[in-house]
């Protein structure tokens, strides 16, 4: 399979849109016939990245815009989640397991660790004052492969 397909989705930085983002991306990915586990992984990383954009990028200001881009090339899924918020000063620290810049909010500090574990690759590009872009890649094994 070598078809290419893509989408772009933009929505307000409101927490109610976290579930919308998960369902929208899962629905796009379903054309690759992913396993239930792969689908859960993808929903979880989308949730983590969008939640980070809302809480950290926009400081829970609902007037921001979150952009998700998805691309399928063969059995590869490319996802980017982007905000134009406050950006991350220290990327290495932000990606450290259990680290959170907002301990008062009862955050677990596991967002980036989950994204790293559930996807094959993740790159974070961030500039303080400009925003953050999380680029993720995952190969979808697909249920079909297992039966063939």
């Amino acid at each position, binding site marked *: 399979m070598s078809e290419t397909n893509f989408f772009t989705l933009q929505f307000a930085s409101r927490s109610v849109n976290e579930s919308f983002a998960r369902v929208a991306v899962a629905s796009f990915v379903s054309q690759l016939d992913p396993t239930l586990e792969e689908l859960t992984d993808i929903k979880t990383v989308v*949730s983590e990245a969008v939640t980070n954009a809302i809480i950290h990028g926009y400081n829970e200001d609902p007037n921001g815009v979150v952009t998700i881009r998805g691309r399928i090339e063969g059995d590869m899924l490319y996802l980017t989640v982007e905000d134009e918020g406050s950006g991350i000063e220290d990327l290495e620290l932000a990606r450290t397991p259990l680290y959170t810049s907002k301990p008062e909010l009862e955050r677990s500090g596991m967002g980036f660790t989950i994204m790293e574990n559930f996807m094959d690759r993740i790159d974070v590009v961030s500039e303080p004052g400009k925003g953050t872009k999380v680029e993720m890649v995952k190969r979808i094994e697909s249920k079909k492969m297992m039966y063939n």
Partner: protein
Amino acid sequence: MSFGMQLEQRGRALIVRLQGELDHHAADSARAQMEDAILRGNVAHLILSLKDLSFMDSSGIGVILGRYKMITARGGRMVVCDVSPAVYRLFEMSGLFKIVSIEQSEREALSSLGVVS
């Protein structure tokens, strides 16, 4: 699917049955409802049933960790039951499974706390 919870108190143990999707959007209400029930019912032990939880991310880990701290600070114990493989992986990643006891079902959770079901 949105988030909800069902609460049932058995003696000084509170059973919280989480339902639907526990994410950042649902976290505040989940936290507030559990804290309120723990304080009003003079609850010692907390059982979290994840049987009807269809989705959870790191925000849910934060909520569970927060209640664990609250309950242990009061001298009680927390048990989590009916954990799906997906949620168990999050528990493993965050180290939560090392500090929180996990039981198969509500019945086993109750008996592990010495509460007869």
